[in-house]
């Protein structure tokens, strides 16, 4: 016996009719994209559920993939069987035994097909008895069972579902607009991207690259991070901005204590223009309060001065250890800790101002004209798109 399909329940049901349609369409689309590596699967949409028909694809792998799709509340494996009591009994036992940790259960049978000769209450009893007779050390618990076996006798067939697996929650990516994520090679920004995607936001990323002061490997790290994020967003574009000239000019012409603040302001200006050109309405950063010099309240105030775009900071209230845990969970940690500097130490001031002000930053900037440098950086920006399922190093495909 095999599981025939996976049943998908989605959360955040308090949606208006119109939004709900859009939500469902997008979720359906995202699931199809996510399951591309399993070409025999088929996604079916009904009134308030979705079903993934497995057609022989490995059930555990498909389940794991689906658990990474935002907008899904919970999932269950389901067995489909012909409508005879004997077959339903076997199916119920199979579904129960699929989880070998379960010690207690209850059966909830429902008869949509009233022609089926056994009443729901009787079916509950018969199935419960059958499972008890064929297992050891297992008991019925109607209040708090490890597994609730849901049996539905419909017109076409009978369906048995067992344990609920938690979904990723949140909203389907692509239902709440787009944001531009400032992606460094560190631990924080990918996590910020993940949490933003969780709220249904599609992410494009911007990265500032300063060769030869930063290495090819540092850029590769960012591309690998973007690729890792496609697990949750299907598609992620990375805009790599050549930042060397701007950085050199800051180093040459701005006071050392303010170079960090002004560098971040320049990054914000470029990011805003990029977002504006691409009709993206917000920026996202991995800033958390009080971690480093650029993340004091004063710094945030001085840096934020150059844009009035909303800046989403999902990590602002999180502890570093929680951020690290989450980055391990989502699979970006190992990439983030690769030992290449994401920010060129040559340009790092020995004592950055932890309490910069907007006024001073602006007055220093007024001494030099950055307009052309920013324009040039934007013009020479390189865009790379990743899709889930892409192998990142295509040129190696033949070799391996």
């Amino acid at each position: 016996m095999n599981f025939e399909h996976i049943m998908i329940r989605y959360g955040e049901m308090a949606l208006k009719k119109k939004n709900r349609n859009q939500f469902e369409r997008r979720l359906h689309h995202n699931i199809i994209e996510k399951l591309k590596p399993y070409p025999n699967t088929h996604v079916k949409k009904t009134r308030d559920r979705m079903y993934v028909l497995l057609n022989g694809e490995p059930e555990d792998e498909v389940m794991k993939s689906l658990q990474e799709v935002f907008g899904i509340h919970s999932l269950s494996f389901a067995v489909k069987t012909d409508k005879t009591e004997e077959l339903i009994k076997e199916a119920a036992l199979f579904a129960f035994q699929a989880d070998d940790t379960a010690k207690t259960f209850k059966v909830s049978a429902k008869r949509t097909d009233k022609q089926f000769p056994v009443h729901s209450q009787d079916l509950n009893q018969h199935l419960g008895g059958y499972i008890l007779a064929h297992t050891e050390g297992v008991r019925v618990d109607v209040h708090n069972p490890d597994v609730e076996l849901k049996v539905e006798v419909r017109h076409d067939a009978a369906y048995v579902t067992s344990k609920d697996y938690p979904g990723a929650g949140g909203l389907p990516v692509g239902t709440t607009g787009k944001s531009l994520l400032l992606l460094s090679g560190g631990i924080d920004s990918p996590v910020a991207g993940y949490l933003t995607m969780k709220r249904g936001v599609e992410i494009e990323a911007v990265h500032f690259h300063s060769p030869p002061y930063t290495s090819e490997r540092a850029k590769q790290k960012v591309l690998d991070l973007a690729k890792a994020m496609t697990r949750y967003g299907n598609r992620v574009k990375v805009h790599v901005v050549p930042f060397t000239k701007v950085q050199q000019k800051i180093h040459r012409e701005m006071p050392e204590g303010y170079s960090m603040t002004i560098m971040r302001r320049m990054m914000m200006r470029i990011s805003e223009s990029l977002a504006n050109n691409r009709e993206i309405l917000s920026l996202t950063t991995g800033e958390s309060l009080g971690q480093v010099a650029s993340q004091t309240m004063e710094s945030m105030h001085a840096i934020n001065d150059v844009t009035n775009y909303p800046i989403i900071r999902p990590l602002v209230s999180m502890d570093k250890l929680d951020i690290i845990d989450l980055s391990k969970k989502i699979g970006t940690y190992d990439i983030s800790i690769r030992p290449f500097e994401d920010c060129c130490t040559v340009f790092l001031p020995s004592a950055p101002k932890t309490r910069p002000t907007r006024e001073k930053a602006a007055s220093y900037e007024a001494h030099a004209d950055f307009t052309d440098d920013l324009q040039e950086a934007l013009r020479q920006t390189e865009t790379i798109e990743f899709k889930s399922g892409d192998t990142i190093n295509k040129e190696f495909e033949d070799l391996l």
Partner: protein
Amino acid sequence: MIYLDNSATTKPYDAVLDSFNKVSSTYFANPSSVHRFGGEAERLLRQSKIQAAELMGVEEDEMVFTSGGTEGNNMAIKGIALAHQARGKHIITSQIEHPSVLEACRSLESLGFKVTYLPVDETGRVTVDSVESAIQKDTILISIMSVNNELGSIQPVEQIGELAAHYPKLFFHVDHVQGLYKTPFDIKGAKVDLCTVSGHKVHGLKGTGALYVKRGTQLFPLFHGGNQEADYRAGTENVPGIVAFVKALRLTSHQQQTNRESLIRMKRDLRAALAGINGVHINSPEDGAPHIVNISVPGYKPEVVIHALGEKEIYISTKSACSSKHPDVSAVLAACRFNEERTTSALRISLSYQTEPSEIDTFVTELKATLNELKETMERSS
């Protein structure tokens, strides 16, 4: 040529050699070099690791590339023993392991470790009960092979893994060199801590292989030096060999999926044909791995048979070397308690996914002929 010595080594796939050549000439940089060229070699190395891990069903950071089976077994056994000797100094293995396991264990005995060498039954299998009763308070490692290289016996590694999981202080190592892509084996499912595989047994190149090391497992390294392979194994990585290894894994894994049934059929036919030859005894258990058939032909010196077949460009192997006065005994067969007649006259025929049924037919015909030709001389000398 009919090559039936695939348990000794296999012929590399052409595609494997192509990859090796291309990587050797195009990506020869040292992955640890800071420059961009070094970065490319590093990226190729990382991609190789990702794919190897995917093929083995493990995580990327759990694969350590090695120079092959002997290194993997030594790294696992000595590495665990030396890193965890404060916990205990007792190791359990079997009498029919590969020499790289047995000798690694013996070397540890000289350092004060105690080793239990479990016996096997007549089919070459250890029992889970014997493993369980050998476990002591100070046991730190169980090392059991998945498939025996001489007989093809399949060991109950899944059950041993299940047992070992009840002893959290104990590590479980599986020498999977002969079993890889021949018998179904799920590293994660079998609850293994360490697992050795080798490239040249699956149509890769000599000098390549990997050790699976479960996340969080401490090993005392065999090689100290740079911090390659997450400090498990110092030394500039053999990038061309590694890429060729991963290619071989992919191609052979595909062969397993598509051709395993026909390999099983071929072995069954070979066994039946051999059983029909007068004087031939089959030593391999019926339910063994699909690529190994071990036979004895009492009265015939195995080396002579091998040379005679070699003249016809048919290659099989023996474990017992030729020595007129003291014929070497196959330790594996002796452990299965075969009599001396059998243990001194063993021959091993080992197949691969590239073996053709027609080659098996020719081999059987030629073996019959050879035995007939040799009969008179052998009878006179005995």
